[in-house]
């Protein structure tokens, strides 16, 4: 009994000692004061130096939290209980959050740097007038390939994926919109097409792709491609730049028929407690110098026209990530197709998955 009491006493004392240490560290970092800003972002999606600079400039302490999927973020914000002041979801999640009244309207008068954003990326279908969201990064869906393994193929067109020489060499992202969209694009249709005939046609076309499909995978696609487990992959441009960082033999291309244009936007969720600070932060990130440094750190494409001018030429002139006007004209943002159409897309995708081995 004595031993039990002694050991448990030690445990409690140790726990309290650690607690004192933790709260000391918290205080020395300023996390416990009143003036804080909680940012909810994807992991490793901001240059940490910028956060420090923001803290010095404004005296607001930043608490940085991360999520790994739009869905996880949505759940957390829907449930409440936490105070997130700024979040950075993708466009389809933003339209969902708008529908469910989870966003605070932005006060554009507090965002003078907004004028730096390229007009092409403003006022898009998922948030007209940018009432709730400001672009943070953007990108495309395209093809990563390994020139050494594909026999001189270059993928100017989606149809090059159907080449019989690619037998069992293609990895696809496990996303209904991406894969069905690719099918529609390859036929020259819009990737927001809801015409049943066109969709069936796309499905039929996709089913002839199955001999070339090696697997349909999730996030591990980056690792598999970097390790040269397959020659070709359908990926988001952000992932592509990461893959190419890992393995510089690989190349990325957006086929000429057009493709998806995606966005991660800054929003202020309903859970925010420091709305003033949130505006300050968004404005801070819109500053050309800050946006440029962030783009260099993260490796995604910045929507900030002024920042683009500050980036080194080998980044800003890279047509793979900053495609020219003709191609960007063909890129499409995913429309919110509504619950019914989305589940139809999912069914079609499931059908495709079942037939591909």
């Amino acid at each position, binding site marked *: 009994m004595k031993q039990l009491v002694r050991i448990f006493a030690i*445990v409690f004392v140790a*726990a309290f000692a650690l607690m004192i240490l933790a709260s000391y*560290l918290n205080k020395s970092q300023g996390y416990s004061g009143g003036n804080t800003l909680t940012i909810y972002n994807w992991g490793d999606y901001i240059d940490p130096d910028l956060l420090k600079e923001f803290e010095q400039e404004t005296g607001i302490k930043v608490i940085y939290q991360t999520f790994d999927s739009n869905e*996880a973020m949505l759940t957390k914000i829907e449930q409440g209980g936490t105070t997130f002041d700024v979040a950075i979801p993708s466009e389809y999640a933003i339209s969902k959050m708008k529908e469910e009244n989870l966003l605070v309207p932005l006060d554009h008068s507090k965002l003078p740097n907004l004028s730096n954003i390229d007009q092409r990326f403003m006022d898009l279908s998922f948030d007209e007038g940018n009432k709730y969201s400001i672009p943070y990064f953007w990108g495309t869906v395209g093809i990563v390939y390994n020139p050494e393994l594909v026999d001189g193929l270059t993928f100017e067109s989606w149809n090059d994926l159907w080449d019989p020489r690619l037998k069992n060499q293609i990895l696809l992202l496990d996303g209904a919109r991406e894969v069905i969209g690719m099918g529609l694009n390859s036929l020259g249709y819009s990737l927001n097409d809801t015409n049943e005939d066109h969709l069936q046609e796309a499905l039929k076309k996709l089913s002839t792709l199955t001999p070339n499909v090696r697997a349909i995978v999730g996030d591990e696609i980056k690792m598999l491609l970097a390790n040269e487990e397959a020659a070709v992959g359908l990926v988001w441009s952000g992932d592509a730049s990461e893959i190419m960082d890992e393995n510089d033999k690989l190349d990325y291309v957006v086929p000429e028929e057009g493709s998806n244009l995606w966005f991660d936007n800054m929003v202020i969720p309903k859970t925010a407690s420091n709305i003033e600070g949130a505006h300050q932060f968004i404005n801070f990130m819109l500053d050309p110098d800050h946006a440029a440094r962030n783009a260099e750190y993260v490796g995604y494409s910045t929507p900030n026209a002024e920042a683009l001018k500050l980036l080194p030429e080998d980044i800003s002139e890279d047509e793979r990530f900053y495609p020219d006007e003709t191609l960007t004209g063909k890129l499409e943002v995913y429309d919110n197709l509504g619950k019914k159409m989305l589940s139809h897309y999912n069914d079609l995708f499931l059908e495709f998955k079942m037939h591909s081995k």
Partner: protein
Amino acid sequence: MGRNGKLSNVYLAVVFAILYAPIAYLIFYSFNSGGHMRGFEGFTLEWYREVFADTRLLIIVLNTFIIALLSSAISTMLGVAGALAIYHVRRKRTKNTLLSLNNVLIVSPDVIIGASFLILFTMIGIKLGFTSVLLSHIAFSVPIVVIMVLPKLQEMSPTLMDAARDLGAGSWQILTRVVLPYVKPGIFAGFFMALTYSLDDFAVTFFVTGNGYSTLSVEIYSRARQGVSLSINALSTLLFLLTVLLVVGYYFINRRAAKTPAGRGLRP
């Protein structure tokens, strides 16, 4: 016998090699100066330095241990009380029902427990953070402690308690001088199980963290999704060493307990 023994030894070695290979691989690359896990370029401690330079990460490590220690200690107390209660239930059916209810909590998926805690906490207005994580860790640890302590209680001969009572011991004395010393190994086993469960629990914790409060498993997970930095390897290595230390510590406590049998002198 000889041949058979050799074969089973080889089999055992293979199994352990498979189990430990990924951990060894991960530890090996935590010293790689190359910055990735393909090909070793040179020895460096840079990743460990990076871990220790990251104050937020250190706070999270501390949080993780505070939660682990407090939750396992509190849940051990509750669990022992629970095991005693179940042990003293007379009717067999009630007893089995209670035990099954306890087991259901152990086998039920963590995601569901986590989601229901999230709903509960937001409903009754507990802010997500330290309290919510602590409460949920206590909750999922209690059944584990119960199941570690109960067999020890059942193993104990009831005559011990009768004898103590005959010699004039009160209930409190029986509990503290006879029963608890006897089940001590079970209590420690429960405590250490709860400790390790709490240290590495992801699914439940993921739901109930918030407001800047996070634990290691949640943090590592969200960092790992966006390209694995080797500092995660370094951190995992440190954690692994710590768990090894814990296990070794448990082993020695157990051995000491075995050398001086429960309730010195009670048994012949």
